[in-house]
């Protein structure tokens, strides 16, 4: 996984609360392997109409924001389905950071597994950022994970992130390697647990 320290890029506001993962990546694309180019269908039903024509009003279709690497979203961004492919779609489109007041729990967990930063700002700051970007759409925005700040224009917006996730992103750490170092503890737990909770092992069905 690629690490994340800081980013200077254009930021696209998508000011919608409860923007769920069905909107980020419609279910009909879940059959696709990631190599099929899942970034192409990011926000498919919001970016395009049923004939495949671009919806000019959708922020990511506006010329200034086509190549944005940052999305500024509303509360509960990424709620709904656990599909990790929603994160693949964002990442493969080129998005490296989402800034929003809150996230669906599963989505933000998936994001961290793939090097996508989910920065949490206050509702007021999310609105202020959106307003600033609407006013000057193509201004570069700086996201600094070390400092936990977003710089837009001359204003600094602090953000929060779980400290464990922050460390993992800064270092590009992979969970599996870390867990392997706990191999002995896992084995000890398993053996003690068999005695402690014998009922937890599935019975073999009588046929």
């Amino acid at each position, binding site marked *: 996984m690629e690490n994340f320290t800081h980013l200077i890029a254009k930021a696209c506001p998508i000011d919608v609360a409860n923007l769920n993962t069905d909107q980020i990546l419609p279910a009909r694309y879940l059959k696709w392997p990631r190599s099929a180019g899942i970034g192409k269908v990011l926000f498919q039903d919001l970016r395009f109409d049923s004939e495949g024509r671009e919806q000019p009003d959708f922020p990511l279709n506006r010329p200034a924001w086509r190549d944005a690497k940052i999305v500024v979203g509303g509360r509960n961004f990424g709620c709904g*389905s656990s599909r990790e492919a929603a994160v693949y779609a964002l990442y493969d489109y080129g998005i490296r950071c989402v800034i929003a007041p809150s996230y669906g729990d599963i989505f933000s967990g998936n994001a961290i*597994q793939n090097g996508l930063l989910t920065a949490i700002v206050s509702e007021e700051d999310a609105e202020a950022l959106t307003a600033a970007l609407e006013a000057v759409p193509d201004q570069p925005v700086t996201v600094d994970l070390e400092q936990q700040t977003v710089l837009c224009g001359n204003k600094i917006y602090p953000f929060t992130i779980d*400290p464990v996730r922050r460390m993992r992103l800064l270092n590009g750490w992979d969970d599996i390697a870390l867990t392997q170092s706990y191999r002995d503890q896992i084995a000890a737990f398993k053996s003690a*647990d068999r005695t402690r909770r014998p009922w937890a092992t599935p019975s073999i069905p009588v046929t």
Partner: protein
Amino acid sequence: MSELLTLFDKLWTAHEIARRDDGDALLWVDRHYVHEGSFHAFSRLKERSVSVVEPCLTFGVADHYVPTRGPRHTIANPEIARMVRQVEENTAEHHIQLFGLDDPRQGIVHVVGPEQGLTLPGLLIVCGDSHTSTHGALGAYAFGIGASEVAHVLMTQTIWQKKPKRMRVTVDGKVAPVITAKDIVLAIIAHIGADGATGCAIEFAGSAIRDLSMDGRLTLCNMSIEAGARCGMVAPDETTFSYLRGRPYAPRGADFERAVEAWSKLSTDPDATFDLETILDGAHIAPTVTWGTSPEDALPINAHVPDPAREPDEDRARYLRGALEYMGIAPGQKLTDVEIDRVFIGSCTNSRIEDLRAAAAVLAGRTSKVPGLVSAGSSPIKRQAEQEGLDRIFRDAGLEWGESGCSMCVGINGDLVASGERCASTTNRNFRGRQGPGARTHLMSPAMVAAAAVTGRLADVRPLMAGRKV
């Protein structure tokens, strides 16, 4: 005196292998359910040339992409056929028990787990599906995970978690007849919001919850995720134990009695405290339906939809305009004036035998004014419904009687609601395009869907049940 613990604290502690200084804990996973969508994770194992570490604790189902109509083994769409084939191949390669298309126990993962007695109180259960919260109905700690975590569990049988906040949602009193778990959970989500429980483990408590059958509790916990919760649970009790007795994978004989002894301790200590508390009065819950594009947009059936012109908050007004426009509903319209085009009864939320009975009780001797599909949650439920003659009631009413699967809840097997069509649905998400691009979804209980079918519009089921057995 020892520390007072909630049910969730007890479940958490029982699974903690290690805790890091930063607070994240490594937890043991008792059951891992996989399905067609888990292919990303199996690919990662292949990349690393590693095997599933605990195949006996891993169970597969074919549910998301399986056909519900026509012959099950000839899937015309090659991409869909490949999805079903992949789960067969991946589970075979790793020696994982699969409840596949040929298996008489096949069904929706969140129906099969409890039905087979794989889901038990006190277990930690994960699955790459957000509705894994369903299994909390039996007093399990169950939550949905993404593909990277699925791969991690397959390789290590563990998962890293940050301890969620503890939230108790109490529904006191007694609900009126015909009011179901679906009405209760929609009322809860409308009350706390679609992110009202973000970062939380919910324990559902109170007399109205205690009174729910196991099927009802499964519906309730299923939709915890629609309030943003990590998981939802109900403390196990006699309802749970009698549901589990004799299930194929549950402990048997003296082992079962010993297990019940252990499971009986899985409840919140009196006076233990929660980080958040919400209390609702069950007596005030009416038959509830959604009108908008988020599960929090739920109202009693006798209400009018909101009018954005009367909404002082500009952001909220903008949301209301967008949702009403998508749904094709006029501002302030009476819910019972909304005409429907189609009905769907099924999904991991509402496809169990009691759900089918409740819908059949309304439909018996009546005709549906719109087309619709009924898809039982599992093949055993389908057979039981047929033994009870419920399939005849649905067919006589003009509805299709299908095989089990996720079907029209998410539409990826091809069971879609057409663009612009309005569907009264027993599912869990009324998101834009969830049942198909441009589809309009109204969530409600099976009895309310049956009422909508009979009247051709959103309707109060209560008068239709006058003189009938609930």
